[in-house]
């Protein structure tokens, strides 16, 4: 009887060690690679926006395609543009020429940006505007599934998530 129990435990342990453990390890590494690829592609996209001063529909679509095709995950992309308004600072300077005054930023959110992209085919920005890109995956990766099964982890955290923010350095108007 004892031998049978030990045998079953051994088989169970062997299965975990020989199959589950390597699979989980590889799945974790896969998530790390996807995360790195996501960061790289997002940084490249953000730098292009910063140096050209515009977000084109082609570049945006290519970016979304690239991040999806790299890892097979489904991503949710948020692009926010903080538009610089120097008029308040000019009003201060009008009164007192030696003052600098504060510029103001107002935010244009993802849905507004997507609408503009669809309408005009591109979004033009100017020097001083700030662009923030946030990406997170919305599907469950294999690693997350394993963790849910073996650790009971039910959290909604994303395996792959990144954000990138940059100040635009060129005026985009052609």
């Amino acid at each position: 009887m004892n031998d049978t129990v030990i045998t079953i435990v051994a088989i169970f342990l062997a299965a975990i060690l020989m199959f589950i453990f390597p699979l989980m390890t590889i799945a974790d590494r896969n998530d790390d690679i996807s995360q790195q690829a996501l960061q790289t592609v997002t940084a490249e996209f953000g730098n292009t926006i910063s140096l050209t001063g515009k977000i084109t529909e082609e570049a945006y679509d290519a970016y979304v395609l690239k991040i999806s095709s790299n890892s097979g995950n489904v991503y949710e992309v948020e692009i926010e543009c903080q538009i610089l308004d120097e008029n308040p600072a000019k009003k201060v300077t009008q009164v007192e020429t030696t003052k600098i005054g504060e510029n103001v930023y107002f935010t244009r959110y993802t849905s507004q940006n997507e609408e503009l992209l669809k309408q005009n085919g591109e979004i033009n920005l100017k020097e001083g505007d700030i662009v923030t890109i946030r990406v997170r995956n919305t599907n469950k990766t294999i690693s997350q599934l394993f963790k849910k099964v073996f650790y009971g982890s039910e959290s909604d955290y994303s395996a792959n998530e990144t954000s990138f923010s940059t100040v635009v350095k060129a005026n985009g108007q052609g």
Partner: protein
Amino acid sequence: MKLQHMTVIFIIIVLPITLVLSYYIQAQIDIVTLRQSYTANLINATHDAMLAYELNTMNNEYSDVADSKKRDVQASINTFFNSFVNQFNTSGYKKEDIEPYIPAIIFTCYDGYYIYSPMDSYERYTYEENPNLEGEVKSDNKKTEYTLKPYVYYSARYKHGSNTDVVINYSLDNYISIYGELNGNYISEAGYVMTNNLGVDDDNSGSYSETVFTEESYLQEGSLYWDNDLQLYIYLNKDSGNDYYKISGFSGGTKPNTQVQKKIVKTNTSYRFYNIDGTIRKVYDSEFDNDVKFYLSGSNTRTYIKTYSSTYRIINSNYPLNADYDIPTGTAERNRFEATKKELIEVKPNDYNAVANKINQNTLSSLKAIQASDIMINGTNVSSVDDNSPYAVFKNDNTKIFDDTIENIDSNFNEHRKKVIKASIEQNMQLALNSYAQNNTSLKLPKLTEEDWDKILNNITMFTFMQGMPLKNTVYNDYVIATSNANKDYIPENGLYFIDNTNTYHKINCKTLANNIKNRTTDPNSLMGYSAVEFERHYIRPDTSTQQTNYYKHEGVFACYDCIVTSNTPELYVGNELNIDSTIGASAVNTLKQKYYNALAMARLTQNRATKYLEN
């Protein structure tokens, strides 16, 4: 073998593999993260350098003096290195640590460029060291110095036939300088290249005397009619019949003076070009007592269109026609009026004529024979250069450079100009890189994309390379191109703002401006155009004893939220035409075009240029 033994053996084999794999992946992740950090640093440092250049030139009244510009560029490069090393906070890098990884920094200006790159220099013997070898090079004492090389113009030498051998310096727009022998005559000239591709005799004098006229005819009477578009129809009495012409862009007048008079036309008249029945005619206007006269220029004839300078009554389609204005009231006449009215369509105004200096038309005519394949490289024709040379694009290229469509975006002139600039930069970049690489033949020039070249060929840019920077177990290679958005060296075509009568400044193709014109809250004639640089913050020092003051040159004006703050405007050009909303009416469109080209000409007149002394 028992299962547990197999399991242990399996673990012994797999665990190290997994550990090594994890370590390797982590190392790759670290490399990529560090690479992104270096890229961000490079971009920020290049941008800081460009900002420093803009700040220095904005507040330097001697920017167009060669030495001053060289100092500004040198300061900009120092800013690049300072900014780059400062971003490596705790690493303790100095400029000397970073310089070996910078093969070249290229700073493109309006009509040429600087290259900052390493070069070998040798010490020479002094008299005290060795009187016999004084001035001789110490061959064993080579050192590498990073210096700003002399300014390289965007130039090309052309040899056409036996009596034309000229050097032409190009720029970022249609401004050129020409030196050399042209059709046997030595010339040294600079100015804007503009064509009269409109088929009109270009008379630069602008003054006429009565003896030129062989025929004069005046309108017996003028018929004025405003339609819903507020366009003015002028009844033009030509010699052989009656034709009705519509002139747009003209404000109203009173009842015409029907007395036929002969007057001397005043000098310095201004003119515009109109397309009349498919022929481009020059239409002059001159002050004539209280009336404004328009007349057509023929080969020795003047046919006058008499118009009126005071307020007209606006007549809409439901308003009865006013007989005082002698507008045809009968159906047949009215039908004939409607059938024969022709529209004077103003063509793209050559307002550069009025303000900017142009290349003499005779010089331009002589240049028309030159073709791209006439380029000379190192004293020989371009046909003999190696196929890998950047100038190989001109081999067998028989395109006439100075054709009749120079101002068009896709003209032969513009395409050739860009190729010359590109070839010059590529050639000198390769030379700089060769000098940097020495024996390291694996270093190659990065392949620039079309977008990169577009930036370089249309802006003042700073172009930094980084090569061979250690990055864990690999090296970092990258380049960054930063463009200047506000400088006095070059006013790009989208670098103009227009202040309206509500103290708001717009771009010329702003949708809000167009709506305001349609709603009549903005008068297009009230627009005043300035370069975008003038809306940047400046500083002045009123005198040596008072402190510096920061100010905005145009006080009390604010940016339009549609076109300036949110940059929500369409492309400035559609084809070769300005992209102005046509629903504002032809008259307003013409006014805006005129305002735009006048402002562009004025802005470019004040650009910093080293060859100003050669202008006419």
